[in-house]
């Protein structure tokens, strides 16, 4: 896959979680979601559009997010995605799961040192 070596490909499932997390900051269009993921991960996470749009549509279909057409700041017609109540609930559950997992992995990687949130 194209992209620099420092970039990490996202696992399926992880992408869904990250999208939900990103939309927590407010409604956003596809390009914005990709930009935010990239920015928030210090350019580490590269989202392939071939994964992003299927994921957005999949989440929409699962009613975790919904979408409507809107105008961007520059007057461009864009499709804006927003978390639904179900999406918020799922996000909380996923977050808990994810935190426990990262803690566990951190524990394995650094046995003596105590936890820290990333």
């Amino acid at each position, binding site marked *: 896959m194209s992209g620099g070596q420092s970039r990490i490909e996202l696992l399926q499932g992880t992408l869904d979680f990250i999208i939900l997390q990103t939309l927590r900051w407010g409604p956003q269009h*596809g390009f914005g979601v990709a930009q935010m993921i990239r920015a928030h991960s210090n350019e580490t996470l590269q989202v392939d*559009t071939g994964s992003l749009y299927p994921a957005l549509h999949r989440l929409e279909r699962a009613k975790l997010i919904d979408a409507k057409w809107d105008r961007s700041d520059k007057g461009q017609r864009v*499709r804006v995605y927003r978390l639904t109540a179900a999406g918020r609930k799922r996000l909380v559950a996923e977050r808990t799961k994810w935190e426990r997992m990262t803690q566990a992995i951190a524990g394995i990687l650094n046995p003596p040192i105590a936890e820290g949130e990333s």
Partner: protein
Amino acid sequence: MRWLWGRPRRDAELAEEIKAHLEMAVAQRIERGESPAVARDNARREFGNATHVAEVTREMWGGASWRAFGRDVRYAARGLRRSPSFTAVSVLTFALAIGANSAVFSVARAVLLAPLPYASPSELMRLYGADVKDPTSRWPFSPADYLDFTAQQQSFSALGALETTTATWLPEKGEPEILSPLYVTPNLFPTVLRVPAQYGRSFTVDESENGKDHKVILAQRFWQRAFGGDRGAIGQRMQLGGDSYEIVGVMPSSFSLGLNEDVYFPLGFGDAMADAVRARKQHYVHVVGRLKPGMTQAAARADVQTIAKRLEREYPESNSDRTVSMMSLHEWLVGDTKRPIVLLQAAALFVLLIACANLTNLSLSRAMGREREMAVRAALGASRGRLARQLLTESVLLAAAGGVIGVLVATSATRVLLAINPGALPRIFTVSIDTQVLVPSIVASILAGGLVGLVPALGIARADLHGSLKEGGRGASGGRGGERVRRVLVVAQIGLAVMLLVGSGLLIRSFEKLTGASTGFDAEHVLTAQLRAGGARYDSASAVNRFYDDVMRSVAAAPGVIAVGGVSILPTQGNVGTSLRIQGKDVDEGRLPDLGYLEVRGDYFKAVRGRLIAGRLFENSDRADGPTVALLNETAAKRHFPNGDAVGARVRIGPDPKSQPITIVGVVADMRDVGSGAPTRPTIIMNHVQQTWDRSLSIAVRTTGDPNSAAAALRRAVKAADPLLAIRNVETLDDVLSSSLAPRRFSLGLVATFAAIALTLAAIGIYGVLSYAVTTRTREFGVRIALGASTHSVLMLVARQGLAWAVLGLTLGIAGALAAGRLIAGMLYGVGALDLWTYFAVAAGLFVVVAAACLLPASRATHVDPLTAMRAE
């Protein structure tokens, strides 16, 4: 629902969404200081393939898998267009295999599967008499037996009977014509077969005395031909056998008793029962019964056999050692055609299997060649399932296309085949390609396509696609397993081809033996035709004799005619039976030896060049009122007069012990009496001059040149002798002989064609797999040649592989052929199912073909340039 309704709009929206994404990316890059052109390029590169993104996104919508299927089909069609030769070969192979199956199946369905055109046909049984010692023998009933069974049986709701005959029809306009009427008991149509007349009515019970009321029912085909389908024909009269008959009904078009009958007369037994000898000892009544609902065949058979035992005790003189058996009417009508049809269907299925194996190989090669393409698509996000489905769709598409073409081909092929072999099937079975043939053909196509696509699809599902991408797509992965499958398929193909080759080899040998075997007659330069002198004007022997003498005399006088004779049944056209008593030998009344019965007239033996072995032929001095004389054929003479004292012996024939004694005056060589080539029946040959009760006679005319030149003279002679009489079946004896071989030639031709296709496909299969193996081993061969391997050793390296498959396939094929021998055994003549010569020829032929298929890849291996091969790394 919105998901379905809004589909086109959603497509547009997705396109817009993607476009917006790209525009925003471009705008952002321009803001960062990139030039618009560079920004556009970079944004597009970063985004990736927009079409692909749209496609995988659309997949998320789900909801309608048929849409995904439609997309797969479009992709498949696009992919197939890109490799036209692969597509052409695949479609052609499928077309051939499906076409062969559809064609044979259309016949198999009509004959074996379709119900007979009667109500509840499964209840209908054909009853026949059988010899206790020879259960395979089949006799018609005697009238008295038929009436006894009708009265005593408890298993059938009704029994009915029929009898065959011929009659001359004198149309109001045109020439007289010989028809084939059937006598039927009045209950046969309404009660037994439960088929009412389409127009008019069936016979009434009081019309049941053989034609005395002069009523006739028309078969649909005859009605169409003679009356142009005019319903006004009912109530009209027609001239049959010199009498005027009233037409009372017309049968429906699907109706037939399978005997090519034209009209029906009512059948009764009053006259027959009045004559004690005729009543119980003459067997001419064909019996059909309808089982009571719920009655099993076994129970019904037990019932009638109990009655047969009772009749044996009551009438030992006529009925001892006689029993009764039955089979379904369908089975009876199918008769001998079942075996070749089953054989042909099996052969066609083999061709389909071989075609599938071959195409699997072909698509495996193609899949291996496309590993890189598949890997790229997988990397772009296509799931394995998706890719596998893609491959399956491709092969199903190919099979469907092949199937459609195949069915079209089959439609015309069936028509042509049946047109070439008009007598191949009883007319009751109508072959047509309709939905009941189309649906199985389409299902078979799809299954075959699925089968062919399955192996490559599984391969894709398992293959290490990323690995193949890294390796630069040289396709090392998936190769091992794939290769093994391909070898198994090649061996299986050879095995199946060998089975077909053995089968067709045995049939060819049989045909060769049958055509090479002596028929006992010389068919060249002989014209034959059927005559009938029937009706009231011919109720005396002298009238019959006068007619035939007149005809034969004037034909003999025609130019180019060497000899003219007559015979009751032409060679190869069957036989009828009687029984024999030899004077001076003890006679066991119940066990009279069975004897075929033939009548000849004039110079028959000279006309067909039959050979006299002992004594003399009939002469003019054997007059109608003189002592009765007869000839025996060689088989009869040897069996009953092993000491060679047949000539001069005195015998009686038939059921009546006080019948006219007959003196045997000569012995003639056997003539083939049935087309199948079964041994000639021991036969007594009577002089028609003295035995005129058979009013029909086939005339045989030997000519110096073209036998057809005698046809006009024959017609003229009949017209001159009696303008109200007709001739029919004017054909050369060569044609008669040839059509007696037609069913055999028909199935032989098809099986041999199938075998040839099978062998070709197997050879292509070997060639393909070896070629591929050579390509993948180019480097190895390069090294070997560089290390000094001789051309010969490299050649053998490749050829040995192909030959090893051939040996394995041959072994399996021979084992299969031996196991399937029973299927074909009944169709052989003069060779056993284990005919060594055939097996040897098949093996030799196979090795020649396999060697040829190995040659090209093997020689390519020897021409590998070591330097190029290594540099290619």
